């Protein structure tokens, strides 16, 4: 990523380690290196890199991960504001 970072401390990602089964799929699907697996448990090692794409939560079978997923796109958010619906890339 060449050190390219976005705004820290805003994302909705949460991990409940007690429900983790250590499958490691979260680390596999994350395109931003947010998770690491050690001793068959996932942990969040870089929360600020998270882009809330939702891949980890959707693929977490025991439901240890929660995130409010979406696309980090200003146009999508404006579209959501204007239509009162979900943000959607409709530009």
């Amino acid at each position, binding site marked *: 990523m060449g050190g390219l970072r976005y705004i820290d401390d805003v994302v909705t990602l949460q991990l409940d380690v007690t429900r983790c089964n250590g499958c490691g799929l979260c680390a596999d699907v994350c*395109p931003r290196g947010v998770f690491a697996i050690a001793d068959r448990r996932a942990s969040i090692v870089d929360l600020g890199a998270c882009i809330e794409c939702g891949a980890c939560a959707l693929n977490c079978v025991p439901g240890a991960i929660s995130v409010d997923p979406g696309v980090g796109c200003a146009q999508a958010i404006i579209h959501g504001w204007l239509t009162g619906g979900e943000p959607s890339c409709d530009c």
Partner: protein
Amino acid sequence: MMQSAKEHDDEQQACCGPAPQSGGSCCGSTVESAASGRQSERCDATTREAGSERRQSSCCCAPAAPPAEYSYGAADYVTGTVETPVGAVPRVSRTLVRSDRLGAWRVGWGFDRDDYRVRPGMYAVGTPDVGAPVLVTANYKLTFDALRSSLGGLDAWLLVIDTHGINVWCAAGKGTFCADEVARVVHDARLGEIVDHRRLILPQLSAPGVAAHWVKQACGFRVTFGPVRAEDLPAFLATGMQADAAMREVTFTARERAVLVPEELSFVWDRRMLLAYAGILAASAVDRDGVSLSRGVRRGAPVIGAAWLALLAGGAATPLALPWLPGRAFSLKGALAGGVAAAGATALLRRRLSPAARLALLAGVPAVASYAAMNFTGASPITSPSGVEREMRRALPLQAAGGALAIGAWLASRMGR
């Protein structure tokens, strides 16, 4: 990054590009069929099972059947067929030809980007046998081209699902690249009769839309998420489907950012901008002496020039210099680039600008550049929706204030003329 012809997924440029269909989002009214309702329920079940808070709307799979009205046009990339127990499967070329590059160039500049599709279904690369890997991808032609041209000498099956011509990552975000659609195409292609294994390799960036365990339940095929970029597939397959950390991470290199610039600049001839030009020229043509077209052009052209300067600063300079511009918020980076551009233009033209015109330039260009740069969030793979929303709540009022100040100053600069 989309035309770099190396990505499995051309990532986010298309997010704000190819609108899925008329009627808006994939979850919009166009897909409100009984079938999609059913799928939506099933996706919900998956969601509950996964315990995630994934929104229902991002999981309504596309239409149950490909839109009958869509004409896929010539398939120049098909070079023959491969016989299988279920019939002939088209074989596609591994090399891109001039028409592929022309198409990539065309959609890169924003022309007909929602009309660049491959017919969904099964394809062969090389001479795949019953044990050959099955690579699943989206039916955006740029994505398909990147995949087939990245496989080196590999023999593989390609399973193209219908994402309405949207790239992998955006389709996953919209919910059109999802487990039900993958399972549907697996069934339709009778994949179980073509190969003797039960494994699908999906691009990693489809994971926001695909619950791997649900694909297994729906069609019996196990999902392995491959690397982010198609160019890494040969290495991934050669090492027994092991992806290293670099294969798993999205990048946003200078080249990938540069490729996105034409699309950002194509806003110059966007319909809304053409209307704005007309408004500016009309407002400039009128004054107390009456209406004069030549006066409209003489006074309006510099305003349009200033708008282009702002779009260049926010839509080209900001993406290119992204890592080096200070701050985290794209709106701040864009405002700074716009500020530099405005200061430069003011210095160059200082003899010819009235104080009010100078103020208009210094307030308006950073405001518009900031807005343009903020819109680049959608094309970047590093922004979170929570972060974008936070920066927008802060930046939009300032951008509006800058714009209002610029318009006021411009009107004032015309007083007495």
